[in-house]
């Protein structure tokens, strides 16, 4: 029930996002979207994912997008062509995803195959980490997470380097 | 140095309260994080007298906050009635006045108290001039030389 209402609100947010052409507003509103998404994830009991979504979606990406916005125009340009090809691609992808999701077992179904193989071992919790999800992310899949973090860190450093290079000449012209 | 030590202790207490687990590994991790944060904040020069105002905390909690809560409830009720009133009886005004506080901390407490009270928002804050947007003329008129002003000044005189 709560999840349904939240999903409706998220859809509403996305409609607003699509309609608005003022990019700054879009950045601000996508922060709202992330907050709602994190609440949905939380209602699904995925506390760690919700925390990541809130921190990355509402915190870091807002800052990065604002930094990018610093370099470009504040109005979204009208598209030069009619967006038929992207529309077809995204609609067919969504159809494919929905078709795939229909084949999944129900949410929290105890007979689902995923709950028979690794989950019992995870639930025994042989690590020192108190939260199960954190134990999975940081201990059982520790190397995986380390790799992901490295990728994200490198990407962040790259973005910051790109944004910094353009800003210096600006400061120079201000000083003249 | 004493200030940094109390900062360290409060950070460790914060960690313990948040985690609620008392295994040696987690306590050690908490102490390590707290030490790193204290070192970082030292490098960033954050732990000054404003960031951690030990000297007026207890006076504020014991005498100022209850009064402030009472004010917040009173004015919030007033604003609520105005919001729900069919005719929307508001008369927004901008008020400029001179606060009597002398220290930065006193000014900040005064400005934040003004903003925290529904019906008034401090727009510009300078040592000798507050610009406040008030929802009603009465709320705006009550700001100059108010009880809040007096109490904030009393708070900073240590």
């Amino acid at each position, binding site marked *: 029930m709560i999840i349904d209402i939240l999903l409706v609100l998220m859809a509403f947010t996305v409609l607003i996002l699509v309609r608005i052409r003022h990019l700054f507003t879009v950045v601000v509103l996508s922060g709202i979207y992330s907050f709602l998404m994190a609440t949905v994830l939380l209602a699904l009991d995925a506390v760690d994912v919700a925390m990541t979504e809130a921190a990355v979606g509402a915190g870091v990406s807002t800052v990065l997008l604002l930094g990018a916005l610093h370099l470009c125009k504040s109005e979204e340009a009208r598209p030069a062509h009619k967006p038929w090809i992207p529309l077809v691609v995204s609609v067919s992808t969504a159809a494919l995803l929905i078709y795939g999701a229909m084949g999944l077992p129900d949410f929290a179904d105890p007979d689902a195959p995923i709950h028979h193989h690794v989950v019992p071992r995870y639930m025994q919790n042989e690590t020192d980490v108190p939260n199960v999800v954190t134990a999975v992310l940081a201990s059982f899949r520790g190397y995986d997470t380390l790799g992901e973090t490295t990728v994200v860190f490198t990407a962040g450093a790259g973005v910051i380097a790109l944004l910094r290079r353009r800003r210096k000449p600006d400061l120079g012209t201000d000083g003249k | 140095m004493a200030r940094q030590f109390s900062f360290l202790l409060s950070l460790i207490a914060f960690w313990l309260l948040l985690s609620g687990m008392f295994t040696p590994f987690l306590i050690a991790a908490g102490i390590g994080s707290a030490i790193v944060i204290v070192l970082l904040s030292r490098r960033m020069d954050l732990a000054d007298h404003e960031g951690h105002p030990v000297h007026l905390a207890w006076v504020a909690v014991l005498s100022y906050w209850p009064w402030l809560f009472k004010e917040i409830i009173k004015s919030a009720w007033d604003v609520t009635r105005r919001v729900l009133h069919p005719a929307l009886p508001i008369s927004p005004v901008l008020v400029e006045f001179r606060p009597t506080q002398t220290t930065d901390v006193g000014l900040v407490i005064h400005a934040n108290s003004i*903003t925290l009270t529904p019906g008034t928002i401090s727009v510009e804050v300078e040592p000798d001039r507050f610009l406040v947007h008030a929802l009603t003329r009465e709320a705006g008129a009550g700001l100059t030389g108010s009880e809040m002003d007096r109490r904030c000044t009393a708070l900073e005189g240590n």
Partner: protein
Amino acid sequence: MSTLVESISAISLLLGALFCCVGGIGLMRMPDFYTRMHAASITETLGVGLTLLGLLLLAGWTLVAVKLLMVGALVFFVSPTASHALARAAMTCRLKPVLADVGETTSKP
């Protein structure tokens, strides 16, 4: 005893939820940005305060109560700062507030 505490917490939650809604309604009804901020500050003071008080009474003397107090303190310290920064930025960008004075002074003798 426990029923008394529970009913107080229920009333507190109810009032907090209603005050949150009042803030939302004010956000819709008020004529300009500055007056809308006043409406939103109801949500941020009484709405948050009463809801957290209700939850606090439900939690009892546990670690959860301490965390609720921390959330409350965070909102208590941060929200006025954010509101002030917002109002100041709006004023810096010369967003003119709708003021009541203009009409009144002409009507006065």
